[in-house]
Structure formats: structure tokens, C-alpha cells
């Protein structure tokens, strides 16, 4: 089956910093989604982005389908951005996530 790799596994940043999370996948996809799992375990869908670029406030995502990767950008980080960010493809196969910790 399709493999999904996320990097980095852990990221610790000061409040206000910017970050880039990466998702590589092993085959072409028709479905790619980014999720944020908050410290209480709730998964929130951030983007549905099988290709192209989308922006939502301080978050944006780009998927380059031909090169099999997607990037999630977080600008001006806030402590509420802490949690685990997952990339998932197709129906869905999840990566193992990037744990982001924002320090005040």
C-alpha cells in the first residue's frame, strides 16, 4: 500500500515563529488532507488539498502531486497551535505525525 512519511517527528518553537511541516507519499494520490489533533485528542480537518495551494488565516498548504509531497506552513505560531499534525492520503492512510510544541 501507499506509504506516508512526515517530517520532522517533533518540533519545538517559540511563540511567534514560523514552521514548515512536510509530508511525502509513495504513489500518486487523489486525496490528501491535513489534520490537527489537539491535546484532548480531537482531530480537526485543516485542508483538503490533493494538489495546489490553499490558505486559511495563518495556515497554508501546498501539494506538489507530481513530486509526491505536501507542505503545511504555520506562520506566527501561537500556543494553541500545539498538538500533532497529520497528513493523510486516499481512504485514508495516515502518516505518523509531527508533534508541534509552541513555547510562550
Amino acid at each position: 500500500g501507499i506509504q506516508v512519511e512526515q517530517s520532522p517527528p517533533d518540533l519545538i518553537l517559540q511563540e511567534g515563529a514560523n514552521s514548515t511541516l512536510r509530508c511525502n507519499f509513495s504513489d500518486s494520490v487523489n486525496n490528501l488532507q491535513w489534520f490537527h489533533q489537539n491535546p484532548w485528542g480531537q482531530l480537526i480537518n485543516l485542508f483538503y488539498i490533493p494538489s495546489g495551494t490553499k490558505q486559511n488565516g495563518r495556515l497554508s498548504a501546498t501539494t506538489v502531486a507530481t513530486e509526491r509531497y505536501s507542505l503545511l506552513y504555520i506562520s506566527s505560531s501561537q500556543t494553541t497551535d500545539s498538538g500533532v499534525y497529520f497528513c493523510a492520503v486516499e481512504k485514508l492512510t495516515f502518516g505518523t505525525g509531527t508533534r508541534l510544541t509552541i513555547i510562550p
Partner: protein
Amino acid sequence: DVKVTQSSRYLVKRTGEKVFLECVQDMDHENMFWYRQDPGLGLRLIYFSYDVKMKEKGDIPEGYSVSREKKERFSLILESASTNQTSMYLCASSFNFRGEQFFGPGTRLTVL
């Protein structure tokens, strides 16, 4: 807003018990999914359903069954719970099969 609810946030059962996990969505979504989440393994798909009474196996269906008698409700059944089924169980729904998925809050199941 889409709302996906799960019957319990925490559940403790004994080995060999039959366990029912219920999931309800209120947005008339065709597709519903059950995942389990374990440390170091991420989320893995157990079963999904694309219509009432229709079901398909995911990546790890062994030891589980599902039921979808009504469009809004998708149940995960552990016929005889075992300790290796201790996990966080997450339900999701989507309008299109490969569309945006919306997740419930999860059920943390402990099997003793």
C-alpha cells in the same frame, strides 16, 4: 457545522466481553469510517461504509465487525474483546468517499 458524536469518551471492559462503539453523524454523509490510534503507529483504518448496510474492510479488520443499519449511525463491534484492542477509537464521516473527513472526539477503550 458537521457534528460527529461517539457514545463514550472512556470505556473499560474485560477480556472476552462483547463491546459496541457507536458513532452518529448529523450531516447526511454517505461515508463513515472507523480508525484506531496507537502510539507510534498513528491512525489505522479498521472498516468503512459507503452506504447503509454496505461495508468494506480497511487495513486492520481482524477482531472487529461493523454495522450500518441507518445512514447516520455506524457501529464498531468487538465480538470478544482482547487486551491488544486497548486503544483510542476514532469515527469519521465524509460526503464523498475521498472527500474531507470529519472526526468524532474518540473513545478511549481499555480492555483488562
